[in-house]
């Protein structure tokens, strides 16, 4: 790492590069173990698998930035998938976009409930969303009456969506679902970067009290973050319905931990205030790559996989932190040296002046 680069950027900005580096390392490792790892079919499967988690993760980042957490995402995804699926089996000829909008509206409503409880009811987010994680699942179980949504009852267009492709090059497809997920991530990043709302999320997360004192609309923004997380979970629920077709009451169970894992691995500070959508994207990429690749790794037993997954998560997070720590040290050293040189230069100038 050259000094010149270190002078220009802070080490935190390297974070994404480090993640990318670790992820690429993982990909290369698996490529050496799994035949045809990079062939189009495998890559298409892997990328399609990312889409749902990514959409939920984007919403989660908005919430986590404000020093909150949304654990109810999996229940919101499951509930939306089930409700929209049921409606589609009963209502003939509903337009796909209407169905998607409906899903997002349901998600919005569920997210707004979370937002109300947290922002205006002043209930710690982890308590509120642990509660709604259970409650939304109960609603799903009660609503379902133990019926399952099956692909046979769903309109035909729904079965075509998973393989719908936006662009294709040499067999590598950009699937519609992946396109939507990437679009959501890009919009999310732009929001954080350029919209006042996005900038405020960082301020709120860094120091909620200071943000309040400074007159920022903290309650409204936290509410909005939860509402958006709900909306995106609704969208993810629609994608879930489209992708898996068969929806039982356990749909998406456990997704919340996967999303939180991806966000944490992606370098979003769980105590708020720092992180980016790019990081979240890389976090999702890493976690999903690990999981999907382990499934495909023929050399190892089904029973070893989770042990390896746990180890790899630890290795990835540790590598990330250690590399970041090293960079920070180097950055500090370079800064100090520059500072010292500047002092010397000032002193020299002073000396010259004196001498003159």
């Amino acid at each position, binding site marked *: 790492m050259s000094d010149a680069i270190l002078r220009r950027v802070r080490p935190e900005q390297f974070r994404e590069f480090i993640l990318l580096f670790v992820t690429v390392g993982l990909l290369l490792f698996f490529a050496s173990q799994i035949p045809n790892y990079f062939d189009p079919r495998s890559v298409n499967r892997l990328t399609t698998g990312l889409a749902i988690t990514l959409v939920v993760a984007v919403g989660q980042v908005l919430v986590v930035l404000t020093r909150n957490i949304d654990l109810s995402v999996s229940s919101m995804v499951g509930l939306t998938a089930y409700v929209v699926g049921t409606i589609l089996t009963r209502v003939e000829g509903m337009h796909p976009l209407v169905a998607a909008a409906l899903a997002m509206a349901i998600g919005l409503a569920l997210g707004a409930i979370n937002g109300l409880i947290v922002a205006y*009811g002043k209930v710690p987010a982890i308590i509120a969303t642990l509660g709604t994680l*259970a409650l939304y699942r109960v609603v799903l179980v009660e609503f379902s009456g133990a019926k399952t949504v099956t692909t046979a009852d769903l309109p035909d267009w729904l079965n075509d969506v998973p393989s719908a492709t936006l662009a294709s090059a040499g067999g590598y497809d950009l699937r519609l679902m992946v396109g939507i997920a990437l679009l959501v991530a890009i919009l999310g990043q732009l929001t954080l970067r350029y919209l006042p709302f996005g900038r405020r999320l960082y301020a709120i997360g860094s120091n909620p009290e200071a943000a309040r*004192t400074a007159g920022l609309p903290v309650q409204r923004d936290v509410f909005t973050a939860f509402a958006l997380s709900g909306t995106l979970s609704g969208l993810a629920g629609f994608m879930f319905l489209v992708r898996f077709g068969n929806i039982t009451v356990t749909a998406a169970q456990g997704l919340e931990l996967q999303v939180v*894992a991806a966000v944490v691995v992606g370098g979003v500070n769980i105590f708020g205030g720092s992180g980016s959508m790019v990081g979240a994207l890389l976090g999702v990429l890493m976690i999903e790559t690990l999981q999907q690749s382990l499934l495909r790794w023929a050399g190892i037993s089904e*029973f070893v996989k*989770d*042990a390896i997954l746990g180890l790899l998560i630890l290795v990835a997070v540790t590598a990330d932190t250690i590399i970041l720590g090293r960079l920070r040290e180097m950055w500090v050293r370079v800064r100090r040296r520059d500072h010292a040189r500047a002092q010397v230069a000032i002193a020299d100038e002073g000396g010259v002046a004196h001498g003159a």
Partner: protein
Amino acid sequence: MAREILRRLRSWEGLLLVVLLVILAYNITRVPNFLTIGNQVNLFQLGIEKAIVVLIMTFVIISGEIDLSVASMMGLSAAVAAAVFEAGAPMPVAILVALGVGAGFGLLNGYFVAVVGLSSLAVTLAGYVGFRGLARLLVQDRSVGGFPEWFTNLGQRGLVGPLTLSILIFAVLAVIASVVLHRSGLGRLTYVIGNSAQVARYSGVSVARTKMIIFTMSGLISALAGVLMAARLGAVRASTAEGFELDIITVVLLGGVSIFGGVGSMIGVLLSTYLVLNLRNGLIIAGITGNTQTGIIGLLLILSVLVPNLAGRVQDRLRRRQVDPSMRAPPSGAAEPTRSQAAPG
């Protein structure tokens, strides 16, 4: 400020007590055989391993950290005990190895959190996946049983009267945990670290050491709970105790411990433990399904914070309306926290 915290804590525990009494009243009047000794023992027995882990989780959360790996550790220790026993070792050796594995992995968790400086969420998430994976590796798709009689008897039969070993261990640990948390240097340090690790005017060494101790104990006690569960169920599978971590954390939070650390008391946690055990017992006997039970506990969790908050605000507003015209009265306790929090320093 200290009085304020004390007052609020007291009101939290008061609230828990009221809710508990309501549930008890319901159970006693509506649930047949509720007060029989058999049912009271059952009530504890069914959640006793969770209750034991709740005690150490209280320390973890008050210190501002989290341990998501506890349930996986319970499964792992049960699996280790089973595997070692199956390999021909005597049961006491198997138990010791299981406890050693628990303490060892707990120490490892603590090392990564306190020394390497990783977020405990990330570290214990890896443990959550990895420990369960190791359990799966050891037991695979089998169910290991055939433990010695004394071992399963310890888990299933009363040791002192109807009280089982697990219940006795829980009682002893609850006393120890209360004393350590509220009456010892380690306990004080736990609160200080939880309040803000930076503000802690203790050396980095003692902060790190405290965290290591807490995480090691978390691993050890989870392992103990896993072994006790193996004794109670008489058979071990890789999925033993799966999903318990959320229940455990829920009980601790319901007990008034702040997820951000630094706040909470053992009395509150014990009350919430007993409250949840009662709630589950009553609901099950009344024939309520698992989903609804979980939902009711979820609702209770939200309402227990929401209702006092809203009530406090209404009270606040009323008081302000009375006080404002005169502008003389000194700021009273209830109105104070929002203001004092709004302008720190």
